[in-house]
């Protein structure tokens, strides 16, 4: 089931920027990367937005206390029960008391819910990305560096995983499981289908590194495979891996949102952006604010990480390594 990566998109002959893995260079590499990221207006904005969102997620309980509402507290006074629970006032009940308005029917504070939603959405996205990157990199290195039968088996497994209709399968798996921690389950399910992409990139890099002089040299000096992998190979593929990782995050955020949107995500009353949007879709006309608030957060998060990932890729892996 080989989906061929055509030569043009394959790894270039040039090693990752920074050259052969002498220990001093990565530091310089990081400084260059940072300078270039910060130097560009677009990626600087994305960096700030992403950092802000992460900060919001980390301090969600604090922020919602600042707003004066817990994400689960009802406010019967903020809504009009007669009109199906629509918020009182313009813009979905935006007021000094409820900064972003309230949820229809319950009167729960949207600000509190959306910042707590950031926590859940980003937690799942990052954790799933971590799973994908760790498994993907390990499998990729193993396949590329050891080659032979290991490569065959792992490559087949990658092909198989990529042939799964992943979204359909994720939905099915999420709806099957009942008595498990939804956040953990969601992370694992999303992670399970994500690893082959990065594994392929890493495998190609590792293949090309395998016969480099410095790797051969290390081998000749009697270094064991573990040492070679961690000291020589890993540092040299870290550039593409980091770029690829950043590019994975927006996909993970979207997938979490999509699953929650379809009602197989986290369980209530835990808010997540996808779930909030799913509930708000019906109100897009009667209470547009309710629909727009979580959508904007989701949009900004995905956009920020995409721009950031693009920039990092241009800097760290200019020649390719694209999935």
């Amino acid at each position, binding site marked *: *089931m080989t*989906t061929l990566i055509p030569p043009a998109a394959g790894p270039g002959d040039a090693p990752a920027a920074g050259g052969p893995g002498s220990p001093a260079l990565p530091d310089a590499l990081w400084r260059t990367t940072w300078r270039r990221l910060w130097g560009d207006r677009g990626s600087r904005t994305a960096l700030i937005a992403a950092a802000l969102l992460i900060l919001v997620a980390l301090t969600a309980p604090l922020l919602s206390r600042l707003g004066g509402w817990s994400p689960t507290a009802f406010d019967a006074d903020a809504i009009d029960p007669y009109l199906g629970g629509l918020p009182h006032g313009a813009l979905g009940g935006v007021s000094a008391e409820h900064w972003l308005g309230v949820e229809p029917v319950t009167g729960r504070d949207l600000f509190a819910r959306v910042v707590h939603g950031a926590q859940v959405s980003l937690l799942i996205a990052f954790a799933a990305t971590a799973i994908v990157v760790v498994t993907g990199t390990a499998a990729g290195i193993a396949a590329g560096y050891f080659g032979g039968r290991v490569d065959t088996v792992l490559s087949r497994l990658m092909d198989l995983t990529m042939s799964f209709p992943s979204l*359909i399968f994720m939905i099915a798996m999420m709806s099957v499981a009942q008595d498990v921690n939804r956040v953990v389950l969601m992370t694992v399910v999303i992670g399970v289908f994500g690893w082959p992409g990065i594994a392929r990139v890493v495998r190609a890099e590792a293949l090309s590194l395998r016969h480099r002089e410095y790797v051969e040299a290390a081998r000749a000096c009697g270094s064991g495979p573990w040492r070679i992998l961690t000291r020589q190979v890993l540092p040299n593929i870290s550039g593409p891996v980091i770029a690829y990782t950043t590019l994975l995050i927006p996909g993970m955020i979207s997938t979490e949102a999509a699953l929650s949107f379809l009602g197989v995500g986290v369980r209530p009353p835990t808010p997540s952006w996808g779930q909030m949007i799913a509930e708000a879709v019906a109100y897009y006309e009667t209470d547009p604010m309710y629909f727009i608030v979580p959508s904007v957060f989701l949009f900004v998060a995905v*956009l920020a990480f995409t721009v950031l990932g693009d920039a990092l890729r241009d800097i760290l892996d200019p020649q390719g390594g694209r999935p």
Partner: protein
Amino acid sequence: MIAYLVRRLLGVAGVLLAICAVTFVIFYLLPADPASAACGKTCSPERLAEVRHFMGLDQPVWRQFGDYLVGIFAGRELGSGPHALQCGFPCLGYSYENALPVWDLLMDRLPVSVSLAFGAAGLWLVLGLSAGVTAALRKGGLLDRTLMVGAVATASLPVYFTAVMLLYGLVRLTGLLPYPAYVPLTDDPVAWAVNLLLPWIALALLYAAMYARQSRSSMIETMAQPYIRTARAKGLPARTVVVKHGLRSAMMPVLTLFGMDLGALLAGAVITESIFGIPGVGRLFYDALQRSDQPVVLGVTLLAAFFIVAANVVIDLLYAAVDPRVRN
């Protein structure tokens, strides 16, 4: 070439078998009991046991799986007696909720999803490629930057947001388009297109944005290749260089992506179909989940896997035809 083909097809069968097995095992662990759902509100334990037996749920999992596999190729008979259910080749199981073989249900819904997928795919290829190539040829210019900012922003919008906004703008506010529905192509081609236009646009926008980005970078890479420089140096007209030499090879990675995307969409765009209420395979899948109609869930999963695998094979064969090295 023949040997290659055989090898590939064997691989395909293996992958489908593996997917089938994994899906089957997962659903065997499902706590929901389709028998008790079918049995009704005051179902006695004895009656439940009878219903389970009728549905074949009292068999061990390997046995059920074996029957299922055999059924795909040979068809099978479900239940016994004068009113046993005939489930002919290819039997993907029987949906007791719908009183129909899963295959019939899939074939009933497939035209809807195929219409949705191909219409959207046509749109996004045209939109995405033209935007991508235009941007690549004017790399760094204002048009390039505008297009790419637009693409990255559009790609970041969740499909359900785009869908709802389009519905609001094109249907509710202006009445330019009708509410999405499905009219068979054979009944009325115009109504078919008009009714599906909204979901096509919603779906295509997202993919067009991704394809614009992909085709731009692919095009830029290709145009930097030595042979393009050679072609230029030979004094070939710019148009020939771009179209004949550049575009052709730049489109290869896009083609790979396209095969995968189209394959995945053919078996239903779950979110788009459920937002617009379009009765395609994705909607069938979603409804089946709600009703614990496991045979249908399994059937849709297999169909989706089949399309993805098939799309891969087609793409690979295209490569193999072009590049003999691939066959080894």
